[in-house]
C-alpha cells in the first residue's frame, strides 16, 4: 500500500521535509482508536433549504479526517455542525443524531459555548483579533478564567510553539496580530485555538487563502497536532487530502431534477488510500480521477 502513496507524494509540487517523509502518515490500521463523534442520519436545514441530507459517519480519535467534494456539496455545513457554529445562522436546524464521546451534541441542556471550548475551529481566511499577538492567544484562556500572568505566559508560549510560530514572534508578542503575513496569521489562529486545550480541531479550508509555502507549513502542523488532537479538515485540494488525512469523506451535490432542489450527501467514506486508489462509488471515482488526471 505504501508504494502507490509514494507515487502520489512524488507528484506533489513541494518536496516534503525529509523528517516528515519517514514519519509519513502510517497506513491507518483497520482498527481505529476511540470513537469521538458518532453521526447518525444527520440532515442540516437552513430554513427550508436542506443543505445536507442523511449523513452517517464515525470520526475516530487522533486521526485527520478530510471532507472533500465540489462546492455546494455541504462539506462546510457538515463541519460547522460539529461545533454548533450553525446555531449562529437564523433558521438553521440539525436533524438526526450527533454525539460527542457519548453525549448528544444538540441535546436539550447542552451549552453551545461549552461545546466550542472542546471542539475548536480554524477558518478559511485567517481572522486574528485586532489585538496583540499575546492577547490573541491568551483570549481563550482568559475567558475561561485563567488570570495569573505566569500561567498565561506559559500557555501562550506553549501554544505558539505547538503552532510552530514561537520562534518567529517571540520577540514581538506585543505587536498587533494584524501585522502578520497570511501564513503566520493562520498559524496564530491555530495557536489561539489550541490555547484552550480543545479535544478536537475543525479546519475549514485552512490553507486555501495561503501561498504554497505557507500551505506546506500548515500541513506539517496538522500532522504534528494529530498526535494530541482529533482533526477534521474540509479541503478542495485533493493532493492536500492525500498528504495529510487518514480518512476521507466524499460529499456530492444531489440534484432533484423534478423539484429543482439540491442537497449535499455523503457518498463514500473510508481510509484515504482506499478512497483515492480504489473508490467504490462511480461518482467518487469520477471526482478523484478527474482532478488527479
Amino acid at each position: 500500500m505504501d508504494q502507490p502513496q509514494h507515487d502520489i507524494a512524488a507528484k506533489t509540487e513541494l518536496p516534503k521535509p525529509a523528517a516528515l517523509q519517514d514519519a509519513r502518515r502510517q497506513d491507518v490500521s483497520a482498527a481505529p482508536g476511540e470513537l469521538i463523534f458518532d453521526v447518525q442520519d444527520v440532515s442540516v436545514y437552513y430554513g427550508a433549504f436542506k443543505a445536507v441530507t442523511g449523513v452517517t459517519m464515525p470520526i475516530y480519535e487522533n486521526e485527520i479526517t478530510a471532507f472533500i467534494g465540489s462546492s455546494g456539496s455541504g462539506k462546510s455545513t457538515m463541519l460547522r455542525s460539529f461545533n454548533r457554529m450553525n446555531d449562529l445562522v437564523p433558521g438553521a436546524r440539525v436533524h438526526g443524531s450527533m454525539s460527542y464521546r457519548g453525549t448528544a451534541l444538540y441535546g436539550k441542556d447542552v451549552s453551545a459555548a461549552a461545546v466550542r471550548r472542546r471542539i475548536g475551529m480554524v477558518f478559511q481566511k485567517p481572522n486574528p483579533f485586532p489585538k496583540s499577538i499575546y492577547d490573541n492567544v491568551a483570549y481563550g484562556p482568559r475567558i475561561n478564567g485563567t488570570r495569573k500572568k505566569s500561567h498565561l505566559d506559559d500557555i501562550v508560549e506553549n501554544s505558539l510553539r505547538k503552532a510552530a510560530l514561537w520562534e518567529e514572534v517571540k520577540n514581538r508578542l506585543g505587536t498587533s496580530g494584524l501585522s502578520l503575513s497570511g501564513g503566520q496569521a493562520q498559524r496564530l489562529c491555530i495557536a489561539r485555538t489550541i490555547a484552550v486545550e480543545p479535544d478536537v480541531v475543525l479546519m475549514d479550508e485552512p490553507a486555501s487563502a495561503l501561498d504554497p509555502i505557507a500551505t506546506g507549513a500548515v500541513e506539517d502542523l496538522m500532522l504534528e497536532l494529530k498526535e494530541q488532537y482529533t482533526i477534521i479538515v474540509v479541503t478542495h485540494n485533493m493532493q492536500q487530502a492525500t498528504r495529510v488525512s487518514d480518512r476521507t469523506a466524499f460529499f456530492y451535490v444531489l440534484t432533484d431534477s423534478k423539484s429543482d432542489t439540491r442537497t449535499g450527501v455523503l457518498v463514500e467514506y473510508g481510509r484515504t488510500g482506499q478512497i483515492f486508489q480504489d473508490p467504490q462509488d462511480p461518482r467518487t471515482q469520477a471526482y478523484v480521477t478527474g482532478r488527479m488526471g
Partner: protein
Amino acid sequence: MSAVTRTDQAAPGSAPAGGLVGRRGLADRSFQWLALGCGLLVLVILVLIAVTTTQKASSWFSTEGIKIFSTTWDPAANKFGALAFIYGTAVTAVIALVISVPVSIGIALLLTEVVPYRWARPIVYVVDLLAVVPSVVWGLWGILVFAPWAQHIYASIGSGVNGIPVLGSLFGPPTSGASFFTAGIILAFMITPIVTSLSREVIATVPSIDREGAYALGATRWEMIRGVVWPHSQGGVVGSVLLGLGRAMGETIAVALVIGSSATITSHLFAPGYNMPAVIANQFGEATGLFQSALMGLGVLLFAFTIIVNVIARGIVGRSARRMRGA
C-alpha cells in the same frame, strides 16, 4: 519539529464528555436584557414627552377648545390663539426651503458629478463647518451684524416695490431688520448642511452604469443629470428636503433672536413676526397658569408637526434606498 509538552489538562481520551451541559449564564442573559432596555429607552422617552407635555397643556386645550387656532394672542386678556405662530413657523420654513434647497442640491450635484474625487472631501468638510456653528451664534451674528445691514436693503426694496400689486404686499413696508425674512435666511444657512449631505448620499447611490449609459449616447453632463440622476434620486431628495423642513420648523434660538417678536399675521415678509419655538423660548420664563399651559401647548403642536414630518421624510428616504438596492 518542536518538542511539545502538554500542560496540566488531562489527556483527551480519559476526559468524559461532561461539562457540556449547562444553560446560558446569568451574566449573558442579563446583558441582553440591559441592552434591550437601553434600546427601548428611545421609545419610552418619546412616549413620555408626548404624554407629559400634553398633560401640562391640557388646560389650554380645554379652555380654548377649537379657538386655539384663533388669531388673538393676548396674554393680558388671557386669550391665547396660536394661529399667528403657526403661520410664522410655516412662513419662515418656506423661505428657508426656497433659499436652501436649490443651493443644497446644487452643492450635492457639484460633489457627486462635477468635482474630481480628490476635491470632494475638502469641500464636504467646509460645508460641514456650517453645521458646527451653534444656533445661538447664528442668532448673535444675525441680530447684531446681519439685521442692521439687511435693514437698509429691505428698506430700499420696500420703498421700491411699494404700491405694486403682488410684490408690494410681499416685500413692501413695514420693513425691519428683524423679520420673517431674516429668520428665513438664517434658517436657510443652518439647514443647508443637512439637506446637502443627505441629498448627496441619495444621489451617490445612482448606479454608475446608468450614468455611463447616458454619456455613451452623447449626452452632456447636465442632460445626464436631468435624464438619469434626477429620476433615480427624486424620492430620496424629497425626503432630505422634508428633513430640512423639520429642522427649519424646530430651530429655536437663532429665530428667537432675529424674528422680531411680533405676533402678527401679515404677508409682508420684511415685517417683524413670530413663530412657535421662538415665542416659547422668549416667554416661557415668565409665564404662569394658562399662559404657561398655552406655551406648553404650542410645544405639543410643534412636537406633533415635527414628528409627522420626520416620519414621512424617513419613510420616503428609506423606501427609495430600498428601491435603489433592488429590494
